[in-house]
């Protein structure tokens, strides 16, 4: 992907940290920097993971066009730092999933009313939501409606966390 193509996704380059997720996948994403340019190492081809991730990145970029009050009420504009952070996380996620040859499932890409970016998957009665707020990346997962016994939450920023969460979602 060329830098000018990144711009078409609507995520300003100055909002995003320089992290080549495909070359440095062990890096734990902490926050999005505003100081450097970002050149992801993606070349869309016939690989289903790369085709999938490009489609998701396109949806992610659309969040930058949402205006305050997008929900018909008092929702905040999706935070640009959160969008940039989600962009990085998705690249790392794609790397982890493709390396492990785990199935690809497309998430819904959305925002919370407080401006966080959210990625959500439903699979076999399981729900996994990843929230990016520009500072941290956290997950909520559930396998039933009982909040105490059938849900948990935690940090989702590391490669190991991504792999564990994805194994839980797609297996069983």
């Amino acid at each position: 992907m060329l830098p000018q193509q990144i711009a078409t996704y609507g995520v300003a380059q100055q909002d995003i940290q320089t992290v080549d997720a495909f070359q440095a996948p062990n890096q734990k994403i902490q926050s999005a920097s505003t100081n450097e340019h970002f050149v992801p190492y993606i070349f869309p081809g016939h690989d289903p993971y790369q085709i999938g991730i490009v489609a998701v990145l396109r949806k992610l970029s659309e969040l930058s066009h949402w205006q305050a009050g997008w929900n018909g009420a008092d929702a905040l504009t999706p935070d640009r730092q959160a969008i940039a952070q989600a962009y990085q996380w998705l690249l790392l996620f794609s790397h982890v999933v493709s390396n492990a040859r785990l199935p690809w499932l497309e998430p819904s890409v959305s925002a919370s009313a407080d401006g966080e970016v959210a990625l959500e998957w439903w699979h076999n009665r399981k729900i996994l939501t990843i929230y990016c707020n520009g500072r941290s990346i956290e997950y909520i997962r559930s396998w039933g409606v009982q909040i105490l016994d059938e849900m948990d939450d935690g940090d989702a920023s590391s490669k190991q966390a991504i792999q564990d969460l994805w194994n839980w979602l797609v297996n069983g």
Partner: protein
Amino acid sequence: MDEVADDEILYRRVLARSGHVKVEPDGTVHATSLAFSERHQQTSVFRALLCRNNATYIQDQPTDGVASLITVDVRNIALIGPNEQRNSITYLVDVLPDPLQPHEARPEIRAAHAIIVLQPAYCTDKTYKRLLHALARLASQRVWIISPHFL
């Protein structure tokens, strides 16, 4: 102020365009947990009975979907989590009438507006997000009152 009866049906407007609706590969369409997210940890719903059971009243756009919940199912969500002081307490989930003002909504739905709230108010962010999962799951167990339309 009247109470919301346990057997009342609640309508929830779901935007079709915002990624709050997901179509799965098998064709299943469901509202995501984000479709229930609102600021201040209060999720808006409309009481079907007071909308004359006409869900079109709560649509802003013709493409909007309308999902539904049963009040008692919402109230049966027992939520135990940390409060802002990090003490673990039990939250009750309730549905309270919250009529809108004339400038906030059209006449047909003003009286029907209600909010899903936690009591005591204000849990941690993560606890509220668990509630959103529960609401999405409850809605997914019921058929759409109005299916969202994708452009």
